[in-house]
């Protein structure tokens, strides 16, 4: 069997040191590929051209660590925990180039990429400052033009096929057949990228895949590399595996508000560690981790009766 399993270090090593075109799968505080992103920071990749549907903890870490030159997304947050302040401040201070889209327009660009449609027409963005700003910034991937069938006006969005997509999922086999449980916002992005790296909670057998064929979200033909990374999205959540780490997220949403605190967090927890296990040791303890394990049928850690 074509074995695509590798380590995070090996996978990150395959990404060019500078100017890689990279898409990230996280959504606010769920299924963020934190283990992978931290290794990108450790390997000091720079000038990333970064794409994401919803800005999340993963991209906030990358922007805060100075790895990103340009960031295209549709807004984002850490849900009620706070804001992606590394990104917000980098935008306010003009430290990164930003291309702000809407959720649909980013998604359609990935959808088009996943089918190698060259571009898609939509009405969304018409009349907005999102569109005005993109055009003002000379974003060549967006054009307002009429339909080939009539004089009707459409926003044409160019397909996005980043060099690399990084997502975190529940399961994959060694060949790269991926099962995503719960909402699959990152599905088209994963299929659109020229190379797809997937970190998963568990590598499963090909037999498991075939026995659960109706759950396979991304067939192996799209996948470049598979990495087993238990708790690889923590402190963000993974449906059916573990809940978000509230304390760790509260802490992060505090330290991402200014340069000094973030710098300290990065130096101690990311650069000061060699791998994701060590990072986890820094941001929580074993009890804190295991207490967040999801309960079957719920998919998260429900409130205990006694609480």
């Amino acid at each position: 069997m074509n074995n695509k399993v590798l380590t995070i270090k090996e996978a990150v090593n395959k990404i060019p040191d500078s100017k890689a075109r990279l898409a990230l799968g996280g959504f606010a505080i769920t299924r963020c590929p934190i283990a992978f992103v931290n290794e990108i920071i450790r390997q000091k990749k720079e000038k990333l051209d970064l794409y994401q549907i919803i800005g999340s903890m993963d991209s906030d870490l990358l922007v805060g660590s100075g790895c990103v030159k340009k960031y295209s997304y549709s807004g984002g947050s850490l849900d009620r925990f706070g804001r992606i302040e590394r990104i917000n401040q980098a935008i306010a201070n003009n430290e990164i180039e930003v291309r702000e889209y809407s959720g649909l327009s980013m998604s359609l660009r990935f959808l088009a990429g996943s089918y190698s449609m060259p571009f898609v027409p939509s009405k969304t963005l018409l009349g907005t400052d999102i569109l005005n700003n993109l055009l003002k910034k000379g974003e060549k991937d967006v054009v307002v033009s009429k339909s080939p069938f009539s004089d009707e006006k459409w926003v044409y969005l160019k397909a996005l096929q980043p060099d690399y997509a990084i997502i975190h999922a529940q399961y994959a086999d060694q060949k790269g057949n991926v099962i995503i449980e719960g909402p699959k916002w990152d599905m088209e992005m994963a299929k659109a990228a020229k190379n797809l790296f997937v970190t998963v909670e568990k590598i499963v057998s090909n037999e498991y895949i075939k026995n659960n064929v109706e759950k396979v979200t991304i067939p192996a033909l799209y996948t470049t590399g598979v990495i087993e990374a238990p708790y690889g999205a923590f402190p963000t959540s993974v449906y059916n595996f573990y809940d978000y780490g509230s304390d760790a997220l509260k802490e992060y949403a505090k330290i991402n508000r200014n340069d000094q605190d973030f710098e300290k967090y990065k130096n101690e927890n990311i650069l000061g560690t060699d791998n994701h296990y060590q990072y986890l040791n820094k941001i929580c303890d074993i009890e804190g981790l295991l207490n967040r394990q999801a309960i079957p049928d719920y998919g998260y850690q429900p409130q205990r009766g006694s609480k």
Partner: protein
Amino acid sequence: MSNKDYTTNALMAVTASRLLEDNQNVVVGLGLPQIATLLAQYMHAPNINIIYEIGVINPEAVEMGVGIADPRLWYKSEHFTSFAGTLGGLLQRGKVDVGFLGGLQVDKYGNLNSTLIEKEDGIRHFTGSGGAADIATYSKNILAIMKHQKRKIVDTVDYLTSVGYLRGDNSRQDEGIPGCENITIITNKCVFTFERGSKQIKLESIHPGIELKELKESTGCDFVVPEQIKLTDEPTDKEIKLLDTKVDPNHLYI
């Protein structure tokens, strides 16, 4: 029918819930939108379909979450799909009857800003669009819930994230944007809708206990005031009881 033992948030949720009709497909966010939708399901609209843009349809959450990325809100769903699946396959596909929105600012034509605020020392960047711009473009009706402040209800938004009636009159239509039947702004002081022709913001009803003078002072733009000012209908005992016992028993939002 009156019940003075309710919070302003409860009044806002009840007001929103009454605007929802049975069998409607609704894009919902965390907080009051979720509360209003659940209340409507209990009261008069059991067949409402709930859509969370992250890719979740018709969950039956038993705990409140911290946002739509919280698996608490995905409990007992009927379908999981992608962002393209909800915002493309349902919203752009014309399947969404009501979209809930919020934001930093709304202007006199119902345009919303959730992106940034211009300050003297530069811009301050906030959450951004997510699906908000798309919902404003494609949803048949918009329900926006806002805090009533002079700097939030303004003449012109600092950044137009989500289209309302653009520059009024037929400007939305002229721009080629799909039509929006109703935009309703529910604040903690009143309900605003928009004039049929000119698309100017107008006072639909004022919450009990709020004076017109106070309203004008705390609003950053002119609005049309009808000759007869309606009072916002108060919650019924049944609604309040449902909120207290079923919808938000821990009073996180109400």
